[in-house]
């Protein structure tokens, strides 16, 4: 399944990059969501994927019985999901506020920080 996941990751990444290169800021946000999913899957797949054996220690035992799933990437992905969500929520609020002020979602128009040369003079 790691190989198939790798292909899925590639597709997600390619789509994310394409969307993040778009002029529309909403598409940029879609790209961000897809990229975040691709990153989570990458962490998950790099720790190897095990079917049907959650990382649990059964009652009465000190350690897991038999081979169980790798717990570390799962913990990392959990953190990543939550942080990705925080990032997205903030970016969305930013987009919303920018749209309210500039009445545009075109990133080419958002030039408060780096105004066009002739605009400054």
């Amino acid at each position: 399944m790691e190989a198939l996941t790798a292909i899925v990751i590639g597709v997600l990444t390619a789509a994310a990059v394409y969307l993040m290169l778009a002029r529309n800021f909403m598409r940029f946000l879609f790209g961000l969501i897809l990229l975040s999913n691709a990153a989570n899957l990458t962490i998950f797949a790099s720790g190897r994927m095990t079917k049907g054996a959650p990382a649990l220690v059964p009652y009465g035992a000190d350690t897991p019985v038999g081979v169980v799933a790798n717990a570390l990437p799962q913990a990392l992905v959990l953190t990543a999901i939550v942080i990705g969500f925080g990032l997205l929520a903030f970016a969305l609020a930013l987009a919303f506020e920018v749209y309210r002020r500039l009445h545009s979602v075109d990133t080419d128009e958002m030039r408060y920080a780096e105004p066009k040369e002739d605009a400054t003079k």
Partner: protein
Amino acid sequence: MAEHSDPNAPWKTVSGIGTSGVTALLFVFFLQYLPVIAAGETVRWVVPWIPSLDINLTFWIDGLSLMFALLITGIGAMVMLYAAKYLAGHPQYDRFALYLFSFMLSMLGLVLADNLIALFVFWELTTFTSYLLIGFSHADPKSRRNALQALLLTAAGGLALLAGFIMLGITQGTFEMSEITASGSLVGKEFYTLILFLVLAGAFTKSAQVPFHFWLPNAMAAPTPVSAYLHSATMVKAGVYLLARMHPALSGSDLWIWILSIFGAVTAVFASFMALRQTDLKQTLAYTTLMALGTLVMFLAGSTGYAITAAMTFLLVHSLYKAGLFLTIGIIDHATGTRDANVLGGLRAAMPITAMAAAAAGLAMAGIPPFLGFIAKEVAYAGALEMRLMVFVVPMALIAFALMFAVAGIVAYKPFYGPQGKLPHKPHEGPWPMLLGPVVLGTLGLAFGLLPGLSAYYLIEPAVNAVMGAPDRGGRVKLWAGFNLPLLLSLITFALGFVLYAKHQALRGLLARIEARGPDLDAGWDVFLERFMAFTKVQTKLIQTGVLRQYMFATFAVFAVTVFVTLVTRNVGGVRLALGGLSFMEWGVALLIIAGTVLVLLTSSRIMALVALGVVGIGVALIFIMYSAPDVAITQLLVELLVVVLLALAFLKMPNLDPTGAQKHSFLNATLAISVGVLTSVVVLLVVDQPFDRRLTTFFEATSWTEAFGRNIVNVILVDFRTLDTFGEIAVVLIAALGAFVLLKGAAKARAAKEEKE
């Protein structure tokens, strides 16, 4: 400058007398080392600074640094006293005193530092304080421009010097100069040529050798005490000091001899002609300073006792007479309101003491016996006759010394004798704080000349020994060395100098015509700066377009190229695609995610994109469920739900994805996107193909229950083993929430305000 001061203003201020007093105390402090150093010993203090990088604040007194330290503190004390009166009543006098005192300390650090890095830091501090002092009249654009020019030029040389020092330190295994010079010459060793060029770049810019000379005459925009102190007696000699300091390690090669001889000689002769051409006395002195620096560099090219003795004697005498003359010009400027050589004359009656001091300095400069300047010239000729490039050096030295004789007449004789021109003010004698310096310096020039044995024993010979790196009591410094070739050359110098002085008015016109034909490096500098600025502007426009898409494109392109190049150079070979044995469900989930992704890519509808994103999210959650990650799957589902709700709420208020109705696609973007995607897949495939290291996981599995008393290992990792990570995660989410809240609250407030208006 002078117009800012008020002769009746109180000048006995803390910043004036205090700094001068402290400097004088330092002078006395260094005086006590004279007998110790003359006896052949050295003194060292070590203060650890950054021990891990072998950088210490090491201070070292030997003959060379002691001579410099005495000049810096001695002349410094007198210049500060002079400045207190010269700038009395100036609104920014306190600032000036601070700059001057900081400069004095930096310069002192420079000549005492033994550690190369510490030396470099002091070196840059002198550049910096010099910048502040040249630009002291900051309301004047010319002053600011000249200050910046000096800063950029000497700091550029300083950077080269730093590179040279680092190479020197690394190749020699120590950053202590005393150890480097003690271990002998570097000639012929690895990196010698590169180190030499870097060090010379630093020394030549600082000591204003042609073609880097033009900043020094411009630096005369500073008040006269600064010109006397920094730009003749001390700072510009830092380059000479460095060459002398490095002499045991770097001298002796053909490269050293040729470069120093030629640059020094050209600077000396060019500058002395230029000095003759000037009518502003301060500019004249500025060019004679260049001449002196060139002469010093030229003599440091040699390695014989006479050459080095010439350099050290000339360095001492030049500091004395040049500081004295600058201060004298300052008094004349102060008293008469002009520095024009064509106007000034006959001031002797009104300013007898100034005239005496100027005469003493002028005689030393002209090299008339029994002044120390005479001895310096004799030794210089003896040294020049011994040098490898004697055929070149001797005539150049002769021309330079003869011109200096003529210039001495212009600056020290002409203003005080002969007919008086029309002066802006009625001349009067200077006040004593301003006279003290020139008088003491002039007297010293005479006294050192009358007592050559004493000055040689305590000052010159210890310095010569430090440069030569070998104890040597040459007895070369003599007032009367017998009838010999140097004496004959001296007589020729006097004769030639006298003719040049007599004809200097006629020569000026000729020199002006020649100068007009030659390249104007000073104007060239402005053109260079302008072009450079234009270039940076174009470059900035190219890199910083201000368009987000282009930044993203550059970022992803760099990612793609670096990953691709790494894969190719590492020669990773093929990729194994193990797709066999997968169930219908696994293929189904994968295809579901891919389908969702493609839909997000192609749709123009906001709602459709939302649904497709949801499909992708749920597909990813299904992978987590199938592969034993229930906690992750639950979180993923929850977050997915929240994302869809949030996006839906926001998108209700926002426009359609494609205002024109159709989505525009870009072939270039698609190519880059596919490249990044393929490369990511390849890297993940390569990673999962590697043998897996389970050590960390094994540790967590073994200790999850036994030490942390939790049966869900993932949860134990989150809340126990990696608590700090989780804490950080919570902080990130909180900050994001606060940020979003503030943003949206601002929006709500603005809306409310708008409604109220309506």
